[in-house]
């Protein structure tokens, strides 16, 4: 008797939805082993990591607050990924969005107009779009690999932000700290839930999830992008423009990441700092895949990812664990997901020794 992986006649939908759940359970199991190996009580550690961060209303607010930018980035990226457009630079596009949106807030510092916030969101969207347009242009014009270009631009964006907050945009009354002025109240997102820090950014993220679903499921262009991702030759046969697919895939991801950037600086941060994101743009890549590139899946996956961030912080404070625990959990989650995904296209079969057909002569 032996085990054999054999291709399924059709990809299994059940395995597709089970895979993220299996991966999450596997991460929990690894967590238990890891905490015991480090000499902590594993059950207490698990409680601190996964339950404590969400046991009060305030904490729930934090969970949703952190999930919002991840959700925004991930739904945008997923549209591109569906079309085989591999934008890895959402983090950079998020930073550019923060710079553009923050720039508007600083330029209109002192104004009381209600228009400042909408203008910031539009500017942030534009910043993300512009930053994503660079790899899109290089890919369609010179066939440059968008994975590399978009990734490298993350660091460029990060340095531009650093340059600004250390230089031109530094708060003159900020005791020389590398940070901008605090934004005015009319440049901040409205609070959504009293007693918490949750703001309107969460509603924006939910709206993006709904729009992404509508776009991918109901629109012809969304359908055509899925075709381009699944069968490029069929897309070419039907006359679906390959360069339009790349442009849309990149710009939608860039735009949503840009809005997420504004959400951060006009939300919990309230000013420009050298670092505006703890890697939401990268975490969104994992979230997009854990969520099966589906807007609804991404909604739940961003909550999970947000919980990993919060749990990691709690574990640092309460259990004196290193901050890399968060990254470790993120990594193992993706690892187990990819492993479990094998069963979408394959199934495990137990092979019993076959009855002999005939004895060799």
């Amino acid at each position, binding site marked *: 008797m032996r085990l054999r992986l054999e291709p399924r006649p059709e990809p299994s939908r059940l395995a597709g939805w089970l895979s993220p759940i299996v991966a999450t359970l596997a991460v929990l199991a690894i967590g238990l082993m890891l905490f015991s190996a480090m000499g902590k009580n594993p059950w207490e550690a698990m409680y601190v990591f996964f339950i404590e961060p969400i046991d009060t209303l305030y904490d729930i607010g934090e969970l949703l607050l952190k999930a919002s930018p991840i959700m925004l980035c991930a739904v945008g990226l997923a549209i591109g990924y569906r079309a085989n457009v591999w934008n890895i630079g959402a983090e950079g596009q998020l930073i550019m969005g923060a710079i553009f949106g923050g720039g508007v807030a600083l330029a209109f510092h002192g104004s009381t107009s209600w228009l400042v916030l909408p203008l910031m969101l539009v500017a942030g969207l534009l910043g993300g779009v512009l930053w994503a347009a660079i790899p899109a242009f290089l890919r369609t014009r010179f066939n440059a690999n968008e994975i590399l270009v978009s990734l490298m631009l993350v660091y460029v964006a990060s340095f531009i932000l650093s340059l600004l907050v250390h230089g031109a945009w530094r708060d003159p009354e900020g005791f020389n700290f590398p940070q901008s002025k605090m934004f005015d109240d009319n440049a901040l997102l409205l609070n959504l839930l009293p007693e918490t820090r949750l703001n309107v950014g969460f509603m924006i993220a939910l709206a993006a999830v709904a729009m992404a679903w509508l776009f991918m499921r109901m*629109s012809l262009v969304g359908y055509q992008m899925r075709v381009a991702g699944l069968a490029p030759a069929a897309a070419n046969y039907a*006359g679906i423009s390959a360069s339009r697919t790349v442009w849309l895939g990149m710009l939608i991801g860039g735009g949503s990441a840009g809005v997420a950037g504004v959400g951060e600086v006009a939300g919990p941060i309230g000013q420009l700092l050298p670092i505006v994101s703890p890697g939401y743009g990268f975490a969104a890549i994992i979230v997009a895949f854990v969520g099966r590139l589906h807007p609804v899946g991404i909604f739940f996956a961003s909550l999970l990812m947000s919980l990993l961030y919060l749990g990691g912080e709690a574990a640092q404070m309460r259990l004196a664990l290193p901050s890399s625990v968060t990254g470790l959990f993120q990594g193992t989650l993706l690892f187990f997901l990819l492993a479990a995904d094998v069963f979408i296209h394959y199934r495990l079969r137990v092979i019993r020794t076959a009855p002999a*057909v005939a004895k060799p002569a």
Partner: protein
Amino acid sequence: MTDAATTPRLQLTGITKAYPSVIANQDVSLTVLPGEIHAVLGENGAGKSTLMKIIYGAVKPDTGTIAWEGKAVAIANPARARRLGIGMVFQHFSLFETLTVADNIALALEKDRSGDDLPARIREVSTRYGLPLAPDRHIHTMSVGERQRVEIVRCLLQDPRLLIMDEPTSVLTPQAVEKLFETLRRLASEGCSILYISHKLDEIRALCHKATVLRGGKVTGTCDPRHESSTSLARMMIGSDLPHPQHRQAQIGADALVVRDLSLDADDPFGTALHNISLTVRVGEIVGIAGVSGNGQKELMAALSGERRVPDADRIMLLGQAVGRLDAAQRRALGFAFVPEERLGRGAVPEMSLADNALLTAHRQQLVSRGFVRHDAVRAYAVETIRAYGVKAGGPDAIARSLSGGNLQKFIVGREIRQHPKMMIAAQPTWGVDVGAAAQIRQALLDLRDSGVAVLVVSEELDELFEICDRLAVIARGRLSDAKAVSDTNAAEIGLLMSGSFIASGAEPHRPFSPAGMI
């Protein structure tokens, strides 16, 4: 006669092989005598390939026995089959393009047979059987027919006592088919048994001594094909009589597609460049392009469909407009439809449902409003296509990949025709499609022509082209012959053209015949 002549070379008894979704072979018995050319006849999906794989050791049967020269054997793998003396020439070749003939053959032989004298033995065997081959030629310079010779010689060098040929003539010109038959007859006269798999009834009647007919995995009869008519063989094969296409007088109208002096470089190293192609297709006629595949059909189709654009827009005129620079969608908007050669991955998205695949090209049929897909209308379009073209599928939600090749082809043909095109191109429309479905597709193309559509058909099957076309042109080495009225030509003439006889001798002085690719 000696005792060896009466003991069957190969005897299968009660072979059954079931897969999770289908029973490929059910209680199949087959007896092949020494020196016999034995046809295995059946539609696609009748279980021919599975049976051959069982004989060649690539698939294990669930039950049943195999006797080789009177002794029961278990053929565990192809190496064991080769040691017994079973050779197989596959429909799809397994040759390395960048290696020479001798290298390719040496790779397949066991060590003790691939010594320094191999080139000499290749020459010897290939001339003895009328299959001339130069051992030091590279595969990529060879035509498909020449590649098949390499495969056959490779088998012959292993002194086979049973040679399995899987649809060997689908890639050959009529003249090459005749030569192949001579070789096979000669082999048989020397005592080698041949299992000949095909669905071409005329060939089987001309070549084979005996035929075993499979339908739905079961043997439906054995006969001597020399004493049967094509009609009676077809009845055994499909279980009913073949519908005959109705051919009405053509009502020729205006020019729908005019190609003028189109030349195009190959876009990949093993592709074929197009040279000065000129072609006119008029409303109400079917023009056929014959030729062995790899002679520029792929490149010509890509240029005509808009999948590859042409710098000079007016080299291709579609319904009076210069369309060379338009993409496939823009050409479709003018009333163009196209059935490509590859169904999965090009004509249809394998992972998507039939409904979603209907949307691929039919979205101009009021299936979209204000940019949003009308899912109900899309489903209705798919359902109606499935019904009207007799597609065997689970319904509009069936995944394209789950359909058999013939059924998916019917769906694609139906999807394209139901868009009411003014100009339609079909490449290899019945390739791998079973006989009944093929007849249905040909009838659909004829009906289209009678309704005043210009139709261009590219096919390797001469019978098919003669059956439905009004005019025929031949493509060879990237050049297209003048189109001739079907009534003014015959298979022999077209076959000659297929070997490139119409190309002026000064065009390529130093190059050997090599349609599949030149560097």
